[in-house]
């Protein structure tokens, strides 16, 4: 049974990876097409609005294949990507891989730190609030979480900046520092800002899941069979945390793709702020690379989540992934 399940797991992963590739391919075409349809001309954007000379416009269009028909442009781009060449940014004339390499790492660290904060704060608080449903703690955290979900990250960021950056003078106000620990220190406030809203959601999710399990019949049976409170809680947590754990994967994807506002507020050179300026500039190679990368991270996290589901839920293991 286990061997069979493992075989189906391998096939399942392979199929999922193939589907991810297809998804990325379709996405690349859609994004390319949408950018093509939006108003504006990258060559003109590069030269500014003042009567650009036709020769200068032509030189830029030829350099970036913008003078080719739409489909040919797309296939030229795709051909290069299949050879590992993501092209050159129209706006900065820097190879896209160079442009993204450091930025990805920064955004990854920001999302990672934020994820850790979300999990370390949201999950234990959710469990504690569910154990003591209706208590002062539960009510206080629940109200705070409503604020957390509702507060715009822009405002939260500036408030944190004022309190911890200016008033208490603990954390730096902007930028990503000189690498290593200094960068992590610079990322604390942005990570808290980013974690604020999603952490509140994770709290609510955890609380609901634990509360739901506590109302199950098996809990009453367990108590009636004389199991210790600690043992019962262990049972409840194992069951409740399955939906929580799987949702956390999506949380990471959300954090990774949702850093734009925080990066702008804290002047961080990550991929979020780059995506925002590249979209309006119609810097097609950069937008393509960032969207595909973000989609890949989300798709792989989703796959990871399903595998985690497989690992933690014996029912799924038995049934096999579909």
């Amino acid at each position: 049974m286990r061997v069979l399940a493992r075989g189906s797991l391998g096939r399942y992963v392979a199929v999922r990876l193939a589907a991810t590739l297809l998804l990325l391919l379709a996405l690349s075409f859609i994004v390319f097409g949408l950018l093509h349809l939006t108003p504006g001309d990258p060559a003109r954007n590069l030269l500014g609005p003042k009567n650009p000379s036709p020769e200068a416009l032509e030189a830029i269009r030829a350099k970036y294949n913008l003078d080719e028909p739409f489909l040919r442009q797309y296939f030229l781009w795709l051909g290069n990507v299949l050879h590992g060449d993501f092209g050159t940014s129209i706006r900065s004339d820097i190879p896209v891989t160079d442009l993204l390499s450091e930025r990805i790492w920064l955004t990854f660290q920001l999302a990672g730190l934020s994820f850790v904060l979300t999990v370390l704060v949201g999950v234990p608080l959710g469990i504690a609030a569910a154990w003591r449903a209706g208590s002062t703690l539960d009510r206080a955290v629940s109200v705070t979480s409503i604020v957390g979900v509702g507060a715009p990250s822009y405002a939260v960021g500036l408030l944190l900046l004022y309190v911890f950056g200016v008033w208490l003078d603990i954390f730096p106000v902007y930028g990503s520092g000189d690498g290593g620990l200094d960068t992590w220190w610079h990322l604390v406030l942005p990570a808290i800002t980013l974690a604020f809203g999603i952490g509140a959601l994770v709290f609510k999710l955890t609380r609901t899941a634990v509360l739901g399990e506590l109302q199950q019949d098996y809990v009453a049976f367990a108590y009636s069979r004389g199991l210790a409170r600690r043992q019962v809680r262990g049972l409840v947590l194992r069951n409740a945390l399955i939906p929580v754990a799987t949702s956390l994967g999506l949380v990471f994807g959300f954090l990774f793709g949702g850093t734009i506002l925080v990066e702008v507020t804290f002047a961080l050179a990550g991929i979020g702020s780059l995506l925002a300026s590249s979209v309006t500039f119609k810097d097609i190679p950069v937008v393509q690379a960032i969207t595909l990368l973000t989609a890949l991270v989300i798709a792989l996290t989703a796959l990871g989540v399903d595998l985690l589901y497989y690992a933690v839920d014996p029912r799924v293991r038995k049934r096999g992934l579909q």
Partner: protein
Amino acid sequence: MSAPTPISRRLVLQGAGAGALMALLAACGSDDETSTTSGGTEGTGGSTDTTTGGGGASAQEIDVLTVAFPSSVSNIYPGQEAGNFNYYIAALVGEALVAPDSTGKLVGALAESWTHPDPLTYVYTIRSGVTFSDGSPLTVDDIIYSVGVAKDETLSPNTSYYWANVDTAEQTGDNEVTITLLSPDVAFEWGPCAANAMWVTAQRFVDAAGGEIGTPAALFTGTGPYKVTSFEPDKGVELERIDTYWGGKAPVKTVKIEFIPEETTRILAREAGDIDMAVSISLDQEQQWADTEATDVLFAPDKSYVGIDFNTAVEPFDDIHVRKAIALACDRATYVEKLLNGHGEVATALTVPEQIESVTGDAASARAKLAPIFDLPYDLEAAKAELAQSKVPDGFSVKVGVSSSAPQVSQFFQALAATVAEIGITIEVEEMPVEQWYDTIGSPDWGLAYMWYFNATGDPAELISWFLAEGNPASYTNEEVATLLQQQREEADPAKRVDLIVEAQKVAMADVPYVPLWWGEAATAIADKYTIEDFGPYTLLSPWTTRILTKE
């Protein structure tokens, strides 16, 4: 500097929320020790005088000066990307043959002197003893190579048009370069200028960087008072002083330019003492800047022009009565007062006064020259009467595209919309990213548009050689204007040339293809222990860190 974006390509994310939050923050803030200084004109009749650099401040060694820019640059070479901030950075590392002084008059830079023996010929004597930042000497060959770079459409797409009229650049003496034009054009004098269209480098630096200039890998090697040691787009630029600079050692040793797109974050960074200076601060948050501890705010005209463009080839703007009706409905003095908090002045021409001050002698006479060009007063009754004579006497509807980086322009059009609604005209304001706004300029889809243009040079014909020439955004043609434009290109006497430029605008503006609204000011915040000597419209386009003084 062709990109007329006041806060170019800047993400404008701060909305009403920013103001509210800042009010909250200010409420818990500390005591203020602030003053607001006006370093330039205040309304008409002002001058580019300075309130700084006087007694009590001197050039002292500053180890690090941290300066926050409101948006990033993608390339530090303005030939590749020509926003204001590219120019401010390039001004510290690159030089050209000539440069503007604080009044906008051209003086020698890498050229010790120059002559203009006939309308087609410019002869420059190259300064000796100049070195590049790596210590190697500047040669005549480097100057000639750099002319080629500035003219090259791929290396310098943003400046090549300026050099299209140049026939040859050749060595004509030991230290002499002669540039020959194809046809006479007095405005060429501003071409070989680092505030406009040339930055001298050497072929070996460009070759060593694989034929690239200004990217984070290639950087830029010039002869200026600083060299770039690092450049990361969206993060910042770091520059180190060149102690052997021919013009003397600058007071600031290290300049750190940081890109901080969010204005409130910039204010907080200043509040925390993390930055010493912020350029192009938002007028919307002027008060918060003024309330920031130990900070001065300096204002100076920035040679910008803001005005309405009518596309005279598009109905109903092909009718002069329609154009006049809208012009008469513009309460320009109130816009300057309310939308700009008085930091600007009512524009009466396409040329900004700072471009003719060095010719007319002072600010007042410059304004007097420009005053009669466009002087339609605000008069809604007259506007109504004009509309009644037009082919759309009952009014019409029109939309206008406004860049989201130009909040004052958006407010202006909303105010105008409210005014003209009374006479039956409906204006719908559509906000859009700055790049989409580019497409509205001169487009047949947008009969009503606007221009926010930053003049780079002190040449009085800079904007009219676009706005009144063939291919202008108003689709405006007038033989008489074309003749006057041609005459000014050939007129070597500066005073006579200014008269021709004024005359061309008078003739054209009688047809109201444009409505000049205001000439703008830029504001710079700086730690109150420092000040900037002779802070004015040309300061940031020349090696500005050499003018940072420390107060005593």
